[in-house]
């Protein structure tokens, strides 16, 4: 037993070693540190509380490797945006747009200087996969909105996987300076049903005083894929962020979204939906950390679990001693639509301040039978009735997407997947 674990780990260590020796890491500053961490950490198993319901066994049995980018063209522009493309985790400048926008700077890989990374906590890694991401980072992208710049044009980061057994570990840095405003959309897609692998994408974002960040993440990889999204968002006084995690498809998906409210009068919204089918697994771990007074956080995650799928939701909310007058809301609602589907949901609120308004709610139920009966009695077939009720259920998450074109794209995509009725 011991040897198998070591063997699985050694596969990943070998990739890290190779990255280090060939000097191809996009995070050269932290490679050594991350590699040491990697050697000392174990691949998490269901014995770890944070991984209790999300098994890594299948993932460990795969043989991943870093792939050279191979796609010559990509025809994927679902909405108007400045497109930035990664192929197999490597930034592809020739497939990316180069339009100059006042107040916006975009840098990648060697263009990113050490000083631009000040303030981003890239050195520490709390688990094996984080250390693996830092030790192997296949590419880095740095997006910056200058002080006071209101960037009207949305950005669209596209991650395409077009080869089998790919390990893609891109890093994304976002800095929204004081009073600036930025919208980023991010899509994860596979070129076909067999191109897959393990993506570990790390996002570090700083939203400065009075700045705004809209973020829509659309996960739509194929059923064979493994995907982990690590996100650390830091918000300063009077900042606003709206982060939507829209999981359209994926074989094995783990999201770790951590938001630190590092100032007063911050509003932070985080929402998401997940609609796993077949044997898919979708895990959302969120952490909202209220550290200062007068902040608001709104969290809404909704899921419908079909077939034999598994869902995990773990929502931590910390309200520290100094975070008086905090308003923190969390809601997680689930519908079990498949006979063998399972949902594991766990809200965790830790409140150390005494003058706060916090609430959380979690529900897990079936599709409303009386609603089904009513719809069918009007001539609507079972399938369409289900889709109507699905649409109704996740509609309030879709309504959090402020960019209308993006919302319409999401609705159209789910409709095409036969999940919605519009």
């Amino acid at each position, binding site marked *: 037993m011991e040897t198998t674990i070591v063997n699985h780990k050694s596969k990943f260590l070998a990739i890290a070693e190779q990255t280090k020796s060939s000097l191809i890491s996009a995070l050269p500053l932290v490679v050594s540190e991350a590699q040491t961490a990697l050697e000392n950490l174990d691949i998490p198993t269901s014995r770890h509380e944070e991984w209790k319901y999300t098994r890594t066994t299948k993932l460990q049995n795969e043989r991943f490797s870093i792939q050279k980018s191979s796609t010559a063209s990509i025809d994927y522009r679902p909405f108007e945006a400045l497109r930035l493309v990664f192929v197999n985790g490597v930034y592809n400048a020739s497939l990316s747009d180069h339009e100059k926008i006042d107040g916006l700077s975009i840098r990648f890989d060697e263009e990113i200087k050490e000083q631009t990374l000040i303030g981003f906590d890239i050195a520490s890694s709390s688990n094996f996969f984080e250390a693996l991401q830092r030790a192997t980072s296949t590419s880095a992208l740095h997006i910056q909105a200058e002080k006071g710049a209101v960037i009207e044009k949305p950005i669209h980061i596209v991650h395409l996987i077009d080869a089998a057994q790919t390990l893609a570990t891109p890093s994304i840095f976002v800095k929204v300076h004081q009073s600036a405003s930025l919208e980023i959309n991010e899509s994860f897609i596979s070129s076909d049903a067999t191109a897959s692998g393990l993506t570990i994408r790390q996002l570090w974002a700083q939203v400065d005083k009075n700045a705004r960040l809209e973020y829509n993440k659309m996960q739509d990889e194929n059923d064979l894929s493994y995907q982990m999204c690590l996100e650390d968002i830091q918000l300063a006084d009077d900042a606003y962020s709206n982060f939507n995690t829209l999981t359209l498809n994926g074989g094995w998906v783990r999201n770790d979204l951590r938001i630190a409210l590092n100032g007063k009068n911050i509003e932070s919204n985080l929402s998401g939906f997940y609609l796993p089918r077949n044997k898919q697994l979708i895990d959302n771990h969120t952490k909202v950390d209220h550290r200062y007074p007068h902040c608001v956080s709104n969290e809404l995650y909704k899921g419908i679990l079909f077939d034999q799928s598994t869902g995990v939701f773990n929502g931590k909310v910390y309200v520290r001693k100094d975070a008086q007058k905090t308003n923190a809301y969390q809601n997680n609602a689930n519908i079990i639509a498949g006979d063998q589907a399972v949902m594991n949901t766990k809200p965790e609120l830790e409140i150390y301040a005494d003058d706060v308004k916090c609430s959380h709610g979690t529900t897990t139920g079936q599709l409303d039978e009386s609603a089904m009966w009513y719809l*069918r009695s009007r001539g*609507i077939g079972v399938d369409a009735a289900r889709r109507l009720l699905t649409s109704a259920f996740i509609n309030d998450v879709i309504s959090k997407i402020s960019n209308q074109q993006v919302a319409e794209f999401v609705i159209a995509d789910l409709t095409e997947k036969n999940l919605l009725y519009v």
Partner: protein
Amino acid sequence: MLTIKNLQARVEEKEILKGLNFEVKPGEVHAIMGPNGSGKSTLASVLAGKEDYEITGGEIIFKEKNLLEMSPEVRAREGLFLAFQYPVEIPGVSNINFLKAALSEIRAYRGLPPLTAKEFLQLVNEKSKLVELDGQLTNRSLNEGFSGGEKKRNEIFQMAMLDPTLAILDETDSGLDIDALRIVANGVNAMRSPEKSFVVITHYQRLLDFIVPDFVHVLYKGKIVKSGTKELALELEERGYDWIKEEVEAQA
């Protein structure tokens, strides 16, 4: 149009319909009355295909087809409509989208092309006027936050939109004030034609002043025990059901 022979149905272990016979011809309006627990709402639900009921005997022929073999949605597409006693609230599904979905499935089943957006809206305008339903309500979530009267008018609005050949009204009048009752009745009367039939289930004779039935039946202990014309309803209103119960016991 509709022939029910010796229908027996139960829910869980409880026999509710115990050999019910009933026939409706095109263009007729039948009222079904009866004391609480006699099986009136069960009959309505069984006709529309609610799966909670087990049919243990008998048959239902609707337009020369075996109704009991059809799913609820197919019954609706064949032209059967049930106005619910308690319409279901469905948050997030707009009244309009719901009707669009229902109408397009019904039309597809009947081999008709889908209505254009313009035709559909014209139909909505025309039919919502019929039941004096506020335009606001047609855009809101289905029945959510509707008053009792609005829900019942919405049932009749749906009926007008879907244009059934046999409509069953399950206590649509219960709890309505006189104005709402008049609106509901006008909606039904506007649809009456030699091809369309109605089965009106009610507790109260009052509705039958507005929707004048061709026949009145009394349902008691899962059977139709007495049939007559509209005068029977007046007699029931005056004398209650005890004399009917006594008649039935005497025969037993």
